């Protein structure tokens, strides 16, 4: 009951000087708002990067030629880095355990023409397993089958953006499209994947059989059985590391790389890329939040300053309270509560402003911002702590006052 009374004393002191109280807590308001906005931007970035990396496909390993083979060599010329072949992809599919799909790929940029409309887009030469490897779906029509792929038939499955650009709302399935003057038949439309984190439109793509795309569209670099990269999808997350290692061993063997020599290819595990980028963003977020937290400390110093002024101003009040029976602890708690309340109200206002600010950033800046669920309790807890820490010294000063001296003060 006594504590309730002390809360009442503390809050009435705050209400007695509304303007001063608002200005005092302003530092905490700004500090908390800044921390909330910064962590929201960090979390938003993390979610966006996670989404874009996992949109590449889950449990995915990407094998690419290594362009920087050996030190000291001068540029090796066009095509020198192209070391992967259809044979490598087939070998992975045959010899590595726990592989769900293997999809070799070549790609290039090409002009598309259909009924007078034309559009420049990315053309990928792949096998039907590509759908499985990249977690893609076909919305309308169908994917080309293995036989079409083997024969290098001129059939294509197109992305949503390409369909809209060339045919508008009309159904593109069954239509003809000239890809760099080579006529293709559209057999399907891919399910939409939207924009990637880096602003790339993932629906602006055409996929077609590897043999049909190779050399005609991607140019002379990819003649014969050369592929640009190989997607390997592991059967499960647990297999991922082992599959990556087995693929590496297999290709070293196939490429006759001696022990100790550098690989002429590299394997990238999407899960580890995801982990690395998330860790990088988390570090960045913590850094931003730490900078913002400095303003919270400055706010705390502001509270301490005003509390010291209040103790001096109210010396007589403190003396009188002691004379009528207040214990030193009562005075200490009263002033500590006052400081915590100032800081907590500032934290609450800052939290509201921070959430509004994060929403505003997300709307206006097209930058993703997601307020972390722990932002509320954390910022309120932190502002309470700031109030306690920076209110401790003024409250201690108040409680140590000599009642005789305090009463004598005019």
């Amino acid at each position, binding site marked *: 009951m006594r504590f309730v009374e002390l809360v009442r004393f503390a809050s009435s002191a705050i209400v007695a000087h509304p303007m001063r109280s608002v200005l005092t807590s302003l530092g905490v308001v700004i500090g908390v708002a800044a921390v909330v906005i910064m962590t929201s931007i960090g979390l938003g970035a993390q979610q966006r990067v996670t989404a874009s990396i996992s949109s590449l496909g889950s449990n995915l390993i990407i094998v690419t030629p290594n362009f920087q083979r050996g030190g000291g060599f001068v540029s090796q010329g066009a095509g020198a880095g192209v070391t992967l072949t259809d044979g490598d992809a087939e070998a992975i599919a045959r010899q590595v355990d726990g592989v769900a799909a293997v999809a070799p790929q070549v790609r290039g940029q090409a002009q598309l023409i259909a009924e007078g409309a034309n559009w420049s887009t990315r053309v990928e030469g792949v096998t039907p397993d590509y759908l499985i490897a990249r977690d893609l779906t076909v919305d309308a029509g169908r994917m080309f089958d293995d036989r079409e792929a083997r024969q290098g038939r001129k059939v294509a499955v197109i992305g949503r953006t390409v369909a809209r650009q060339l045919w508008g709302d009309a159904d593109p399935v069954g239509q003809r499209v000239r890809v760099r003057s080579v006529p293709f038949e559209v057999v399907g439309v891919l399910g939409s994947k939207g924009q990637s984190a880096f602003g790339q439109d993932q629906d602006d793509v055409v996929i077609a059989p590897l043999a049909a795309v190779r050399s005609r569209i991607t140019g002379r670099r990819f003649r014969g059985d050369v592929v640009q990269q190989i997607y390997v999808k592991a059967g499960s997350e647990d297999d991922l590391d082992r599959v990556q290692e087995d693929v590496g061993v297999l290709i070293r063997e196939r490429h006759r790389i001696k022990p100790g020599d550098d690989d002429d290819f590299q394997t990238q595990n999407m899960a580890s890329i995801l982990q690395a980028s998330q860790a990088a963003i988390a570090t960045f977020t913590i850094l931003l939040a730490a900078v913002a937290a400095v303003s919270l400390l400055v706010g705390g110093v502001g509270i301490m300053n005003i509390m010291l002024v209040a103790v001096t101003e109210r010396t007589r009040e403190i003396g009188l309270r002691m004379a*009528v*029976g*207040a214990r030193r602890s009562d005075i200490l708690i009263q002033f500590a509560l006052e400081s915590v309340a100032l800081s907590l109200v500032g934290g609450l206002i800052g939290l509201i402003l921070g959430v509004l600010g994060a929403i505003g950033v997300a709307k206006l800046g097209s930058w993703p911002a997601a307020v972390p669920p722990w932002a509320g309790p954390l910022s309120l807890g932190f502002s309470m702590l700031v109030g306690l820490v920076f209110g401790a010294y003024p409250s201690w000063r108040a409680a140590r006052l000599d009642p005789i001296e305090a009463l004598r003060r005019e």
Partner: protein
Amino acid sequence: MIQFQNLRKVYIMGDEQVAALDGVSLSIARGEHLAVIGPSGSGKSSLRNILGGLDRPTSGTYRFEGEDVGAFDDDGLAAFRGRRIGFVFQSFQLLPRLSALQNVELPMVYAGVAPAERRERAAGLLDRVGLASRTGHRPTQLSGGQQQRVAIARALANSPDLLLADEPTGALDTHTGQEVLALFRQLNADGLTLVIVTHDQEVAAQADRRVSFRDGRIIEDERSAPA
């Protein structure tokens, strides 16, 4: 009720020791109306501080109803001040943000009295000092005499054993001062022990017993027959 036994209070000023109280022995019985008089520097303020539990003696004993007040710790002294002593100050010492009623309630808050009972008792005390119609007023809305009455009501809040007034008329005009002294006499007649610390001979003349101080010692202790 109160026994001082060879009380000393020594302050250290620089490297000099100053004895504000230099061996004071005094007994005060329940129901007495006593004035402590003396010029400034005579030690009467030090006596007030020790008597009211605001300070501790350097040596000697202070017994209140048999209890050794000098041995109380800070919390013990706070409780002693709150429940046993009612203070009345020269400058009233009302809290400006609180109403008259809330000012009177204050000692009861620290004594842990429940809110409803507190308000009822505070209203009753304001009625007793003739301010029943002013309970909601802030100190600044009251005259000096009214403020001192509020302070007296506050001093009575926890039914203290001793009312300790320090120059209670010092900030009041003669007429208002007389009214306040009349109120004190009435409270004393109702059985309250009263100690008034003053340098004003006229105020002291109204007490039944006058204890004069000089240089930290009692130089005179005279009783007058009740008027």
